[in-house]
């Protein structure tokens, strides 16, 4: 008996367009991504209406975490020798007893958050593994043991020799307390630095305020 054969339909769908889309998205993210710089601690910055962009390079960054610990870092990717100058000078003036390898390691280290007494210990660890180490924070409490002042001084001197304009960045956590922030400001002030940039996340300007009027006015002029 001849019977009508039903054409067998395959249940396997053609995945190709799916793959196309997936890889399109993938390539977008690969190109658009900028990796988060490794940080010793997670910092949630406060919001502000400021829209000024964060300077990428040539900056001294002081980080204040929620527990009040202070970290120091130099952003000098274009000239790693600057960081070497700083640590070498620091080693000589404070008798830290660092080896050449440890000083080289400092160049790779993103941020330092230990007192001078523990610096050798920290730099003995390879730069990639340092983030797993719990750092105690740079002492800032009183003027006698304010080590942040020395860090800033040496970094400023190193940058000064390279004739670059530097930015002083302060990155604080929402829950950090004001007294620590004030001590950081004091450390900068002792080095005759009075202009800072606080790292914040962008926030909308509330409607109907002076600033919103001002910005709206600028928009019209343009």
């Amino acid at each position, binding site marked *: 008996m001849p019977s009508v054969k039903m054409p067998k339909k395959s249940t396997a769908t053609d995945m190709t367009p799916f793959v196309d889309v997936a890889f399109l998205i*993938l390539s977008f993210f690969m190109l658009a991504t*900028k990796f*988060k710089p490794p940080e010793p601690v997670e910092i949630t910055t406060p919001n*502000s209406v400021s829209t000024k962009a964060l300077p990428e390079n040539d900056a001294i960054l002081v980080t204040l975490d929620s527990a009040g610990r202070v970290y120091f870092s130099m952003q000098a990717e274009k000239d790693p020798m600057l960081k070497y100058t700083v640590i070498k000078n620091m080693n000589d003036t404070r008798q830290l007893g660092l080896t050449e390898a440890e000083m080289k390691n400092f160049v790779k280290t993103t941020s330092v958050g230990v007192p001078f007494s523990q610096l050798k210990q920290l730099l003995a660890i390879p730069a990639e593994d340092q983030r797993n180490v719990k750092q105690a924070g740079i002492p800032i409490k009183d003027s006698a043991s304010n080590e942040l002042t020395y860090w800033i001084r040496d970094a400023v001197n190193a940058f000064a020799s390279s004739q670059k304009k530097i930015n002083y960045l302060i990155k604080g956590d929402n829950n950090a*307390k004001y007294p620590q922030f004030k001590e950081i400001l004091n450390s900068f002030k002792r080095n*005759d630095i009075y202009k800072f940039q606080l790292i914040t996340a*962008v926030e909308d300007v509330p409607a109907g305020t002076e600033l919103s009027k001002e910005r709206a006015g600028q928009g019209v002029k343009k």
Partner: protein
Amino acid sequence: MASIEEGGGDSHKKGRGVKKAKRLSTRVDMTPMVDLGFLLITFFIFTTTMSTPSTMDLFMPKDTNKDEDQNKAKESGALTIMLGKNNVVYYYEGQLAPDAANFKTSNFKDIRAEIISKRKDVIATHQHDASCEKTWAKYNGDKNSCLDRDFVVVIKPDPDATYKNTVDILDEMTINGVKRFAMVDLFPQELELIQKTEGTYVAPPAAAAPAK
């Protein structure tokens, strides 16, 4: 379609006894590739930093002990804002009264209205003089540049204030166009007042904001 034609080309006849070679499909299973693709996508989504941080400028004055170098604020135009525990804001206008009658409690939402109304007051009571003309010339005839010149906000964060509070109040200065503000330490009697106010707090702290 991106699928590849199967077989084909091999058209010469085979002998009767020769078994037909089993045709292998050239179709590839794409599923693992898709899996991998999406795995990478998720990875990149999570590692990427989308929101670019901005910076806020902060200029601090040089510390000075010399009396003549200190900026004097007119009492009438001064608004002192103190930042306390748990995002509470205290403020008073002019000088702190000996009985602390003008010491008020507020929060970060309501302080904006206070700043704006104080600024309006200062502008309303502005006394015109010759130096104003120069200021106007400097700011291209912007009258507010001179009218609110006596308006000074003094920010005094207490030891329990957080960094977020500090940034928020500095931001408030930008938002409300306050040109003159200073960040200084609390006077002992102010700290005492704040602590007394906070001492009256019963848990939860939100319920305790006294209506003055």
